[in-house]
């Protein structure tokens, strides 16, 4: 089978799930669903803007692939208004998160970084802890879905409208320092999975280094092609320029040089 394909998918729904946040569902065949890994993304054609937009897979099951996105600019605004018909997309692209870990997964997500890590949590064998930060209560998504998966959840909001007031990285550091092992099962070592704004990820990487915790992060950069040809999305990995789209978007935390 081809690694990825470029075709038009039927839109099932494109619903506002929170103020300015949308979940887009497209119809997908069994082979693609099987091939789709957490952390992978699609390049979506949006009429009216020049470049395709990369969106990471939020879920893939029951004949559907879904994407969770926030309206941030012209492209996502147009996308949010498309409710039916076909959607041309190239995917699934990139390398996803490793799934076969015996360790205790700790997911740290900021903002719409929650999109790809929900799919991840649903595929990981061990239930873990989600540290999830957003601006305000209304920006917190998917909490019920993580609960359903049986994950422990720690949230923070910048305005204090829900959970810990401040940054999620502060909450994470506090807990890691207080408990040493924030583990549900003290025998298990932690493994971090990180997706969110660069400032948040930087802070997590620092904590990971200090506490000597290994992990993986999904990066985001502006890209034109999604398959390594434009070389727009370069990121420094272990001293070398790697492409976020093709070599990533998931990299080992210790290799990422921000």
């Amino acid at each position, binding site marked *: 089978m081809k690694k990825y394909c470029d075709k038009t998918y039927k839109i099932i729904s494109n619903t506002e799930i929170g103020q300015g946040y949308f979940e887009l569902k497209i119809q997908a065949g069994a082979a693609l669903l099987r091939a789709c890994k957490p952390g992978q993304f699609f390049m979506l054609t949006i009429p009216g803007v020049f470049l395709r937009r990369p969106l990471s897979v939020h879920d893939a099951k029951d004949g559907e692939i879904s994407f969770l996105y926030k309206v941030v600019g012209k492209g996502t605004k147009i996308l949010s208004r498309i409710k039916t018909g076909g959607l041309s997309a190239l995917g699934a692209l990139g390398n996803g998160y490793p799934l076969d870990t015996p360790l205790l997964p700790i997911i740290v997500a900021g903002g719409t970084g929650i999109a790809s890590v929900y799919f991840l949590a649903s595929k990981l064998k061990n239930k873990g802890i989600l540290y999830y930060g957003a601006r305000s209560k209304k920006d917190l998504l998917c909490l019920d879905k993580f609960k359903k998966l049986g994950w422990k959840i720690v949230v923070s909001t910048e305005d204090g409208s829900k959970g810990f007031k401040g940054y999620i990285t502060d909450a994470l550091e506090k807990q890691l320092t207080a408990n040493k092992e924030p583990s549900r099962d003290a025998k298990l070592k932690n493994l971090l999975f990180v997706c969110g704004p660069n400032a948040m990820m930087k802070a997590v990487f620092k904590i990971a280094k200090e506490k000597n915790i290994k992990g993986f992060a999904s990066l985001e950069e502006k890209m034109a092609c999604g398959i390594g040809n434009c070389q*727009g999305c370069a990121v420094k990995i272990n001293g070398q320029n790697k492409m976020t789209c093709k070599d990533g978007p998931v990299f080992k935390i210790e290799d990422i040089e921000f």
Partner: protein
Amino acid sequence: MNLDLSVSFAGIKLKNPVLSASGTFGYGYELADLIPLQRLGGIITKTITLEPRAGNPQPRIAEVCGGMLNTIGLQNIGVKTFVEEPLEKLSKIGTPIFVSVAGFCLKDYVETVKILNAQKGIAAIELNLSCPNLKKQIVCADLPLTKAVIKGVKKASKIPIIAKLSPMITDIAELSLIVQNAGADAVTLANTYPAMAIDIKTFKPKLSTVKGGMSGACIKPLTLRCVYDAYKKIRIPILACGGITTGEDAVEFMLAGASAVSVGTASLISPENIIKTIDAIEEILENYKIRKVKDIVGRLCKGKDNDRC
């Protein structure tokens, strides 16, 4: 109708006039999973330099209306690594391979071209004399250097040499004539246009180098003019490069005088666009009952308002 899409370009037989443009197609073989590469008229690799280059910092890409800006900065693996792996894979595809080459001085160009000449499977060398994303002035803005590079490279190469020029030149036709007289076998017209964009959320430039090169559909009319002007002045063939997204675009460029066209940014958006371009040229020829694509080259100029015909 038995259509003939083949063209002869600088002595190279192309099965059709549509090539991949440099810098938008990787080293050339990576898309084999996605599109039938052997259908392309030819593949132009991303630009290779004598030594490997890490390229420019992030952000490297910005979208603009109808196009994009880039400042990749010629990130590449260097010619020595290129001839080991990518070239071998490329030569198995079954379509002519054009290797794009850039340098920072005459010696760089000549040495790189010498290394490539020792290899099999290269149909032509495209000299990138016009990358806008390096700190130095572009080569083709320096006439003595441009002439020296072409002469030096021609002496070192048995493979045809194509000079890729910048459109941001006072007189593109005059420059094309100069490179023809210096010995170039063909010209590629043109490269990206120096451009910039500012993020009004941060008050900062959208590219790390502030300025970058603009490509995509929005530059097509600008580059079409370059091809038209140059065609009237030169005898060597023109490879058009600038905003070609559809078969209609390709036909326009050929009518203006291009012997072949290259699809770049459009294939970043979807690699299939390059195959669709070939199919659409066929359809257009059929519609207008033209059997040979080469018969439309320069048709616009085959009238009274022309100092060439």
